[in-house]
């Protein structure tokens, strides 16, 4: 239990996936322009990441390891994630068209969100148990969402600010992210696994 709580705290704050570990920077820069899209993306990521960690962990432990096929890890994981995203998209469209309206456009983007693959790989690498792995997936996704939503909030205000011409667009976003990351350095070393 103690370990699970540490995992949650560490991967939301100390080792924040976006601001400290640099996973999922592309969507972080890409969809943080508006709060609305940021929230949509966050929900989609939490959903897919949790599911992906669960499935890849099972695939690794019960298929790849017993068969001695660990070298197929990357291929398997990325295929599982791509398939999962496709499945979620199809199911969502059938079951809840409203939710699909909200999340649908973000789902294809998630396949190439490296945070998802990173969570799957790290869960196996850190030798987490199934429960720890799933909690790790949720925590990492929440950390990602938090960074994304904070960033969206800042960028909405940044629209009104006068930014030097050369720094407009991605440049100022990166510098803002840097300052945000600086703030998160305060959590450094607070907890380790």
């Amino acid at each position: 239990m103690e370990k699970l709580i540490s995992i949650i705290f560490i991967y939301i704050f100390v080792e924040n996936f976006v601001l400290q570990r640099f996973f999922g920077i592309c969507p972080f820069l890409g969809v943080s322009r508006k709060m609305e899209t940021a929230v949509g993306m966050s929900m989609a990521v939490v959903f897919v990441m949790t599911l992906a960690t669960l499935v890849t962990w099972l695939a690794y432990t019960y298929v790849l390891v017993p068969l001695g096929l660990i070298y197929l890890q990357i291929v398997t994981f990325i295929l599982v994630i791509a398939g999962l995203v496709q499945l979620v998209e199809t199911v969502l469209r059938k079951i809840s068209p409203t939710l699909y309206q909200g999340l649908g456009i973000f789902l294809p983007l998630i396949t190439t969100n490296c945070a998802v693959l990173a969570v799957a790989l790290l869960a196996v690498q850190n030798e987490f148990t199934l429960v720890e792995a799933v909690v790790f997936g949720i925590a990492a996704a929440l950390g990602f969402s938090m960074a994304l939503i904070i960033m969206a909030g800042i960028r909405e205000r940044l629209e009104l600010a006068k930014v030097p011409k050369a720094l407009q667009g991605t440049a100022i976003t990166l510098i803002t992210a840097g300052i945000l990351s600086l703030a998160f350095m305060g959590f450094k070393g607070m907890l380790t696994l």
Partner: protein
Amino acid sequence: MKTMSNMNIYLQDISRGIVRDNPTFRLVLGMCPTLAVTVYLINGLGMGLSTAVVLICSNVVISALRRYIPDQVRIPCYIVIIATFVTVVEMLLKAFQPKLYAALGVFIPLIVVNCIILGRAEAFAGKKPVLRSLFDGIGIGLGFTVSLFILSALREVIGSGTFLADTAYAVHVFGESFEPMAVFSQPAGAFIALGLLLGLTNVIFKKLKID
């Protein structure tokens, strides 16, 4: 005469990848490894070259198979092809460059989801002939490597005060007593350094009227 113009196209493909379509500074793709591994120059170079190798190989194979892969399953096929090359690169690094392998860590398997590679497969290799895809891969791969070189050189010199640390050519740029600005080897410094470099390229490209 025809070979001459062909040559030109290929050269253009390469130079376009390095300058006008520079994946980092112009297309702003593949940001995760760009920010994560550029603490030391040697890691940045290693990552750049590994990505370039994967990109060139996948570009060629995808272009060669482009007529045989049905449109509906092209993305999964591309991903499998890319993942295969990534795994090969991972194994080779583990066997022959274990130090670099340890330094790059999980970012080697993450080359699979580097948007540059899938992006090139979609935008170029899936439509164009093999040779042009090869040169496009070389160009974009070099462009990525050059970008990582610039960023990691900057971060290493300012953040650690060294140049090419961990190699036979290591130099203390400002002498041993220099107190480096350690924030540049931290994640925060990565964002800020890349942001400033992006700003700088914007200015330069504007001055040179390239667009």
